[in-house]
């Protein structure tokens, strides 16, 4: 048994951490939050492309590095730790994965090299309104919520709250076609696409509403299997997002430990009070469980194990809980200063909320986890 990352993978991780320490300090995250003209950190994104991070899990045949998901996981953890304001997850975990999994040879050749080089930003456009789209994932038949549709090869409809929708070059769109639900590839630089940037809960990550009016699109994967493809795609992304969440949770915990060690009250370090120590112990527990569950998800994802759906749901449920607790209680341990704009506590608090909602919320994933657990033979 070897339930750990390899030395090579750990090296990739420490290099990533070094680079982000240097190039993605909290000041950079703040710049993006405070400047509406900068939806993401362009210079950092360029560097990420040059470092080959976007190429990590793309096969060499499409100009990628041909490494695996474990390498991608350790990079995700560091991006989460730094709360990096870049469209990495949308482009790599969702857009590129969709093409890798479902794309034709021509589609892979067309899109993947541009993701690998870092020149292309992609996104996934699924949600159309409030709710977790339970019916879309769980029940048979046409989902009553899904309005976006494709006829005669043209896409029409509206997508709400698409992560990086304002800056992406292309999108994978969930829509109903002539043969049922499908995923469609859409070049966003065309007259049939309108986008409206919207403010997100995490100001360091950009969101947009997308409208399609007879936009050109091409089918991705098999017609009529959109529901299952979307579910599989989200399972895989859940593992990668979990690593971001674990990295963020650990950063929030570290922030609180450092601050309360340095700050004195009643003549001694705040960190010496049991009320504070026990809070940190609980945060540590939550973060450790999330880390171990994320490792299990990484194992399932990288080995193509049949346990992936259960492992992904368990990693996501655990990661949402951990980042929520660590970011919230770090802010609490900072006292009043934690509630100021000036202090960095809210960077992780905001990111924790955002990551708890992308690809479906905790409520949704807990139901999904229960379904999968009750069906599993364990």
């Amino acid at each position, binding site marked *: *048994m070897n339930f750990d990352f390899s030395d090579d993978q750990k090296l990739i991780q420490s290099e990533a951490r070094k680079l982000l320490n240097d190039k993605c300090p909290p000041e950079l995250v703040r710049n993006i939050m405070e400047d509406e003209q900068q939806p993401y950190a362009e210079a950092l994104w360029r560097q990420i492309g040059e470092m080959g991070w976007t190429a990590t899990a793309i096969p060499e045949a499409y100009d990628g590095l041909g490494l695996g998901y474990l390498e991608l996981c350790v990079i995700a953890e560091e991006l989460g730790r730094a709360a990096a304001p870049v469209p990495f997850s949308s482009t790599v975990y969702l857009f590129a994965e969709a093409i890798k999994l479902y794309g034709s040879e021509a589609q892979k050749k067309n899109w993947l090299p541009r993701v690998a080089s870092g020149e292309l930003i992609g996104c996934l456009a699924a949600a159309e309104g409030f709710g977790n789209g339970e019916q879309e994932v769980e029940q048979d038949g046409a989902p009553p919520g899904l309005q976006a549709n494709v006829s005669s090869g043209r896409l029409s409809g509206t997508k709400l709250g698409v992560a990086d929708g304002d800056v992406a070059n292309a999108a994978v769109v969930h829509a109903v076609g002539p043969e049922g639900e499908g995923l469609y590839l859409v070049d966003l630089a065309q007259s049939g696409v309108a986008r409206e940037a919207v403010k997100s809960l995490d100001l360091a990550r950009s969101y947009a509403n997308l409208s399609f009016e007879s936009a050109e699109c091409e089918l991705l994967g098999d017609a009529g299997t959109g529901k299952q493809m979307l579910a599989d795609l989200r399972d895989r992304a859940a593992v990668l997002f979990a690593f971001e969440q674990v990295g963020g949770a650990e950063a929030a915990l570290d922030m609180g430990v450092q601050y309360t060690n340095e700050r004195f009250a009643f003549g001694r370090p705040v960190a010496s009070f049991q009320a504070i120590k026990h809070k940190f112990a609980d945060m540590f527990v939550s973060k450790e469980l999330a880390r171990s569950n994320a490792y299990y998800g990484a194992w399932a994802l990288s080995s193509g194990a049949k346990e992936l759906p259960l492992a992904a749901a368990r990693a996501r449920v655990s990661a949402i809980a951990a980042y929520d607790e660590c970011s919230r209680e770090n802010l609490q341990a900072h006292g009043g200063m934690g509630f100021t704009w000036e202090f960095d506590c809210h960077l992780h608090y905001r990111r924790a909320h955002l990551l708890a909602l992308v690809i479906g919320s905790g409520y949704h994933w807990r139901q999904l986890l229960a379904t999968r657990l009750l069906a599993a033979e364990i």
Partner: protein
Amino acid sequence: MDFNDTPELASFRNEIREWLAANARTELPEGVKYGGEAIYAVAKEWYKKTAEAGYACLDWPKEYGGAGLTPLHKVVWAQEVANYAEPDSYFVIGIGNCGPAVTHFSDEKLKQRLLPRMASADDVWCQLFSEPSAGSDLAGLRTQAVQQDDGSWRINGQKIWTSGANHSDYGVVLCRTDTSVSKYKGLTMFILDMKQPGVTVKPIKQMDGNQHFNEVFFSDAEIPDAYRLGEVNQGWGAALLVLMNERMAITAVAPDGFDRFLEFVKSAEIAGQLLRDDPQVRDRLAHWYSQHAGVDASYMRMLTAVSKGGMPGAEGAVGKLIGGRMNQDIANFTLSLMGEAGAVHDAATAMEQAYFQDAALFSPGIRLAGGTDEIMRNIIAEQILGLPQEPRADKGVAFKDIPSGNG
């Protein structure tokens, strides 16, 4: 990343699978159950059988009754024996805690005399640490050992929460040997012959009606100086070593009650509704599963670290903390699903033979035994996160001058 055995462990697994299939039972004999009295004899018999086959204390040296293998062999054994009903870890406190103390501090002659009989459970051992006024603050213990002119020791005082004391032949006991120095500096550890007139064992009736623990009283109990474990007044260091070995007992994670809850949710129906269809039940199920599975996966990470030559850290506190609380929360939640009839604590009437009513009453003990939730949090905060200790009123004070609240 993979979950495959090394070739050596794989062949060991095959070997013991075969042996267990031929020698272990899948059900306990009629009338024997965990927590009952009858299981003691069954456990003695099982230990004897494993010792004769060479599978007792796998990671102890052969000359002391072990098999000379590694902790990972022990893990494989634990995984395989879990498929059977045999009480394989019944004497874990003696073997896991007292064994290393004897190994580390006794002379060769004593080790050869005592350890093989411990491994085969011919002798049963208990650990005598906690006292009525020294639980979480263990180093505050008061049982006194005084050395006699002939070098032997006389001990007087009382221990509490001693598992298995009523069955034990020997104990490892921590005593106060000097009250004029600070509390950590006046303790000494000994082996104690439990079958002597100066030792009286009295079972403690727990709030759930069971009797798992004991009080042990010493009235001029005798200990030869050869039974001293370590130097005089160096007992705290020795005790820490024993407690660290408790942490090293890496063969299993703390029980959390989850599997029983999952089985219940899979099949139970209350007032015509399948529990598995209730969104609130499903939400709790998912939450507890993510914790249960997280502890399990943390354990796998720890085993990996051990297999690479690392040491288990204070992380075991995580499993203990999560498991204790989960047992209690699951019991409370499940009773609430049963409504008014959940109050019936009668095995013939209640659902699941009243398991969840039982659990509601035994689960508080799990959060207290072997270090309370609060001590686990202190361990995590101080030993893992490096947070400072709270200021203490007893620091640097001679033991006899420490305020005790007793006037």
